[in-house]
């Protein structure tokens, strides 16, 4: 597998030169204020391994700048480290990586730089609307999207065929019927797994138009009773009630890998970035997996949602902001972007999503399907207007607590769980100085 990736990367090197010409819509780097006379070292915290691919090109452009990309931990580990550094007043990086849901937590208390001072809005049109929406908080851009996760359906065609499902389910009703057929194969076989994965549930709600969180400054409203939310919750409740979802396997565990590998877990409703890691997890299922658009709530609709994805921001205490923005823009939008795409990054830049080379990508693992066509479409279809509450990091952990009785022993309903979750979130949010209703 690894060799294949390398081979693919090598093959694209040839076309790279031509491509960089196209993607580089910014001929003169917008960082006009970047000092070029004194040596600068940029510290970048990123657990996205592709960022370092863009460094050599950038350093060639700015010989006085050295970029130091450090993996300071993933997700919460990094946020803790960043908070510590801000509190200590030393060691704050010039650029840091954030999952979209974690941006408001840092942006609202003023810990991030408002990028409009560098003219970030000028490049907004290169991103799909929803991605730009993710980095816009109270109308200001606080980060540039660097990685995208439109939800899609990854399905094991061999298993679905065995169960008598000939085409990937296009609606959730079809998904339900397919789930019953897969379950009828007996034993441990399920269409998918879910052990209180909040992002999975939210991606269904999001797609169907539910907007349970509304954030306006420090005012947060939580409501799980709007139409889109209710429909998704009732649907998933039905899946759980009829034992059509394996609740015994948790995502990213060894059991999960093995379930995907041997086909006892037939599909995943997950972000596009899953393409790069599924082949390692399910080597025996090579050639069996395909990617389809997210099933729809009504036949013929083309709505979409996100599951995961991240952005890069400049902390308010960063020392070299101009240089930092120059690099940030370089690897998320400018000439450095292609090197990251070649290394496996999935980005929400329209320049890439419309690129023939990108759309033509195939992989034996996915039966030589041109899967990026599906994923590019999914990216553009992501419904806009979604917001995360600023304390979502906390809320996610809290959801695992409150949903445990339901998933452990079937006590209560998803709707009850969400109601309890809402109450806890209101209590916590208000304690933290927000106004939560």
């Amino acid at each position, binding site marked *: 597998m690894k060799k294949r990736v390398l081979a693919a990367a090598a093959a694209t090197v040839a076309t790279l030169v031509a491509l960089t010409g196209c993607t580089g819509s910014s001929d003169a780097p917008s960082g006009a204020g970047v000092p070029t006379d004194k040596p600068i070292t940029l510290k970048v915290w990123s657990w996205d391994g592709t960022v370092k691919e863009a460094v050599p090109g950038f350093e060639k452009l700015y010989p006085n700048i050295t970029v130091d990309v450090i993996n300071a931990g993933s997700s*919460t580990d990094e946020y*803790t480290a960043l*908070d510590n550094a801000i509190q200590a007043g030393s060691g704050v990086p010039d650029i840091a990586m954030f999952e979209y849901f974690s941006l408001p*937590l840092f942006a*609202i*208390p003023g810990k991030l730089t408002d990028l409009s001072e560098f003219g970030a809005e000028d490049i907004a049109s290169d991103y799909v609307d929803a991605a730009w929406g993710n980095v816009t908080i109270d109308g200001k851009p606080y980060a540039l999207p660097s990685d995208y996760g439109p939800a899609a359906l990854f399905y094991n065609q061999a298993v679905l065929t065995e169960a008598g499902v000939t085409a990937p389910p296009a609606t959730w009703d079809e998904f339900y019927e397919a789930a019953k057929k897969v379950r009828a194969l007996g034993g*441990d076989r399920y269409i998918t797994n879910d*052990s*209180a994965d909040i992002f999975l549930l939210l991606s269904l709600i999001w797609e169907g138009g539910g907007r349970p969180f509304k954030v306006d400054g*420090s005012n947060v409203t939580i409501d799980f009773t709007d139409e889109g939310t209710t429909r998704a919750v009732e649907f998933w409740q039905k899946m759980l009630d009829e034992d059509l979802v394996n*609740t*015994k*396997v*948790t995502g*990213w*565990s*060894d*059991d999960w890998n*093995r*379930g995907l590998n041997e086909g006892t877990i037939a599909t995943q409703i997950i972000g596009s970035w899953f393409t790069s890691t599924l082949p390692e997890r399910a080597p025996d299922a090579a050639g069996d997996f395909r990617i389809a658009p997210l099933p729809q709530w009504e036949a013929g609709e083309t709505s979409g949602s996100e599951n995961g994805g991240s952005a890069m921001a400049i902390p308010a205490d960063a020392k070299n902001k101009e240089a930092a923005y120059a690099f940030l823009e370089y690897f998320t939008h400018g000439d450095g972007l292609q090197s990251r795409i070649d290394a496996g990054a999935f980005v929400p830049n329209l320049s890439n999503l419309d690129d023939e080379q990108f759309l033509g990508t195939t992989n034996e693992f996915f039966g030589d399907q041109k899967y990026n066509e599906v994923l590019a479409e999914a990216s553009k279809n992501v419904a806009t207007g979604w917001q995360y509450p*600023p*304390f979502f*990091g*906390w809320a*996610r*952990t*809290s959801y*695992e*607590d409150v949903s*445990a009785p339901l*998933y*452990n*022993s079937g006590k209560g309903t998803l709707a009850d769980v969400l109601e309890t979750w809402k109450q806890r979130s209101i209590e*916590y949010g208000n*304690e*933290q*100085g*927000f106004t939560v209703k």
Partner: protein
Amino acid sequence: MSSATTNAIRVHKRPKVGLLFIAPFAVLFLFVLVIPICYSAYISLFQNKLIGGNAFVGLDNYIKLFNDPQFYDGAIRVVVFTAIQVPIMLLSAIALALAIDSLRLHGTKFFRVVVFLPYAIPAIVSTLMWGFMLGIRYGLIGSLNEAAGTSFDPFAPETTMISIGVMVTWGFTGYNMLIFYAALRAVPRELYEAAAIDGANEFHIVRYIKLPALRGSLVVTIIFSIIGTFQLFNEPNILATLVSNSGITSYYTPNLYAYNLAFTGSQQGYAAALAIVMALFTIAIAYVVQIKGMKNVLNK
């Protein structure tokens, strides 16, 4: 212990020498632990809001803690766990130390290493290993269940704590064994010889020489085992991401709760209050154990 020698030392009255011996430890200790603890105690009186900053709240965090059912849930769990797991572990450790010290084993050196080895395994790896050993889908238990037609689940909400007990006992028995073993090795062999000449059999030697020699070590191991299990963290923390429906919540143990409060909830003041209450509780118990068990040594 004759009082004559004790007095002889006291007569020397060189308190400064004692302080000199302890000074390097004490100075670093002050710097690394005492000052941060004082700082922790200080921040436990504050609430740092995401919006609105830091505010002095007095004892509010403590009052909140004593009304927090999640705190009690975790605290009771570790107390029960400690009451069951620590005796099992320490008795096993003593038995092993006696067996290895008796020199009656084939391959004494082999056992000495093997029993200690689990302690050397990093928590992440040991949890991965045990996740497999106890796994019901692809692990050993799964195979056993299949063979026996049973459906025992080591990571159901009711059984997870037992599995954690198996893991902790595995990791720390050898550690405690080594302390007991070192204490036994410090007993002069000639004592046994003298006892044998007086007609004592092996059982007598164990009962009247070896077990009393373990007394000081036993107090140390009890205290440190209590401190250790009260701070139970790694196993539930890693297991939570490894198995589903295990019943492990974010407040499963007080330490896990403190971690989640501080690192995902930004409630550092509340987490500090929790840590300090747990520490006081641990000290109280450790102090009782120490007073009961340590009198002889301390008064020497």
